[in-house]
């Protein structure tokens, strides 16, 4: 680390975050050093517009090194008149979307990036207009034209595959099932997918900018609504970030409740996902079984919290409901679910036709997964041992005994089996948590929140880790929120996984990743 620290112009420590501010010439070198020599993972990368504070934009690249519970954050200040920064994508491919996003949203150009097409904003959004700049505004007529989508102000060029027998199949944004919108363009030869280019961000709702109009305390409600089926983990990560800014230590009880509900969220998602994969292989009985178990868990959620999606529980400083009062209900439901789940898995693993479709389908190699920065279930299924609950223990996770489950195969079957093992792990965590009593109030008292301070918050959603980087302003409002959902990391994996598969297997591959477009598109 000496090599990086020696170059620093400013170093700031905050809990397990180390901010290392660096000059432009050293930026790339520092990042590449961490990535190549220390095998660090690029967790997220984003920009801020801090011109009103000290006259600069800043780029933040957040790394963590496996085995060390610490975040190394390389910070690059950029003067207003100098809006380019050295692209790290050629060395660290994980950065490719982050840098394009920074260009869209802040107008800061990554120099040396090979793909500078727009990512987030679509064709009819005005050129040279960057929503996350603090002095940005847009006229009514521009907004209208953006929605109408007729005037293509910056047309997007899809990659074209040429050659004998290659044809294109465009699909979406509106799909046949009850799923989220996204556009997929297949270049196929016969039935085989040669190349797939997804175009996402149809559900872009300006979430990060919208946060900036809110007070820190109200942000929880929005965080809950970023990605429906990860409502609880998103709000837990957001609350954690704000609590770390304010120096609030939540009580043991609140920690236990959050841990429990995070695992309940994982449970209903994993079982639901395993069931949904059956829809991809037309195994209706499997699909129905998964849906029944999932429904039972969601009804438990509703009995515990009043919300099937566990909303309204997290608040800054703790939680609003003591779900341990209903521990008998939890225990008996989990008991039934466990029994049914075991039967369900027996059914699936005994269905040769089902397993046969999953095996060797949608292969994602460890090497590609590592380069693209794939995360969560998809990464673990490709042999990357990374689980934020283990890597950066929080809540009660350092007191619980469990393993990060990995598989080496990287196919759809592996992604199913990782979920299956994690389901059992979640069940045992829930049972363990219910054995003890926890002390403390539901919510801790709230201190004053310091102006212009920032912190990270994180949680392991059912799909993988979610990160919130939150910065307060001087009036108790949000100055900047960067949120990075696992779906954002895993979106680029799908084209690699489907390469060489047949078009009809695409839904199956896609389901095995189970991306949340709303979480990805922000």
């Amino acid at each position, binding site marked *: 680390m000496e090599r990086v620290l020696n170059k620093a112009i400013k170093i700031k420590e905050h809990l397990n975050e180390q901010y290392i501010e660096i000059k432009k010439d050293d930026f790339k070198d520092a990042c590449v050093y961490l990535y190549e020599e220390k095998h660090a993972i690029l967790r997220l990368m984003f920009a801020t517009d801090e011109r009103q504070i000290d006259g600069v934009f800043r780029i933040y690249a957040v790394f963590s090194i496996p085995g060390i519970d610490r975040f190394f954050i390389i910070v690059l200040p950029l003067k207003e008149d100098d809006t380019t920064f050295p692209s790290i994508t050629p060395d660290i491919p994980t950065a490719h979307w982050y840098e394009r996003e920074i260009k869209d949203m802040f107008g800061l150009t990554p120099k040396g990036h090979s793909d500078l097409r727009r990512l987030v904003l679509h064709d009819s959004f005005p050129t040279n207009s960057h929503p996350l700049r603090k002095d940005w505004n847009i006229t009514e007529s521009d907004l209208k034209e953006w929605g109408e989508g007729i005037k293509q102000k910056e047309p997007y060029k899809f990659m074209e595959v040429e050659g004998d027998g290659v044809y294109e199949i465009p699909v979406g944004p509106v799909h046949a099932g009850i799923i989220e919108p996204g556009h997929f363009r297949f270049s196929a030869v016969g039935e085989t997918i040669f190349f797939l280019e997804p175009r996402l961000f149809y559900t872009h709702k*300006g979430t990060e900018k919208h946060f900036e109009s809110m007070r820190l305390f109200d942000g929880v409600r929005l965080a809950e*609504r970023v990605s*429906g089926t990860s409502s609880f983990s998103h709000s837990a990560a957001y609350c954690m970030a704000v609590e770390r800014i304010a120096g609030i230590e939540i009580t043991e009880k609140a920690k236990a409740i959050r841990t429990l509900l995070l695992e309940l969220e994982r449970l209903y998602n994993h079982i639901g996902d395993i069931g949904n994969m059956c829809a991809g292989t037309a195994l209706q009985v499997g699909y129905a079984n998964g849906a029944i178990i999932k429904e039972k868990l969601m009804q438990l959620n509703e009995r515990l919290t009043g919300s*099937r999606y566990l909303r309204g529980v997290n608040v800054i400083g703790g939680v609003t409901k003591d779900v341990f009062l209903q521990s008998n209900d939890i225990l008996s439901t989990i008991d039934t679910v466990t029994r049914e789940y075991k039967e369900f898995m027996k059914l699936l693993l005994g269905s040769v036709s089902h397993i046969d479709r999953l095996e060797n389908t949608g292969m994602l190699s460890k090497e590609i997964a590592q380069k693209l920065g794939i995360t969560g279930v998809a990464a673990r299924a490709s042999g990357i041992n990374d689980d934020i609950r283990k890597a950066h223990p929080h809540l009660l996770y350092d007191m619980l005994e469990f393993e990060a489950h990995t598989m080496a195969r990287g196919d759809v079957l592996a992604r199913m089996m990782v979920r299956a093992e994690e389901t059992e792990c979640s069940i045992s965590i829930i049972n363990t948590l219910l054995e003890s009593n926890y002390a403390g109030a539901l919510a801790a008292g709230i201190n004053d929140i310091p102006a212009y301070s920032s912190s990270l918050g994180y949680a392991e959603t059912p799909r993988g880790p979610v990160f919130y980087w939150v910065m307060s302003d001087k009036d108790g409002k949000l100055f900047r929120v960067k949120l990075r959902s696992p779906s954002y990391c895993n979106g680029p994996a799908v084209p690699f996984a489907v390469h060489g598969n047949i078009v009809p297997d695409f839904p199956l591959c896609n389901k095995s990743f189970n991306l949340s477009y*709303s979480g990805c598109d922000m």
Partner: protein
Amino acid sequence: MFKEILKNLITRKPSIPFPEGFDIPPEEAVKIVSLREKIDTIFGRSLRIRQVDAGSCNACEWECTALTNPIYDIQRFGIDFVASPRHADVLLVTGPVSRQMELALKKTYLATPEPRLVVACGDCTIDGGIYKGSYAVTNGVANVIPVDCYIPGCPPTPIQMVLGLHELLKKLT
């Protein structure tokens, strides 16, 4: 499983118990039953819905999916979700309508045969919900296409959705 089915056949017990949510007062239950009759008379026994996600957080979609699970089993009322707007009587729209989905939503609407009924499902569809005021959303479905009926809730539970559809049909007579 077969043993269970057999047992249920003999005892005439429904194989899957009704969820808590169906513990509704009798007047509500009557509504659900009359839903079936309405569909029989107006739509010739089948009401076909095309769901369009116009930028929702995805929870509303999962509740639509839940409607089709064996517990709620909405198909028994003659209602089903279809793959194409061309086959649909009703468009069920979720989300605040993000600007980047506005055009696709309009096109889907135009691809639906008349009389295309539009149900807007979830708080977001009413006025943008939590996303109200963001530059990237249109603050509600009615700003993009005409709406016949709203189902409030964030997200509405499957039961609320069934009751919402009932409200829509009530308007038709």
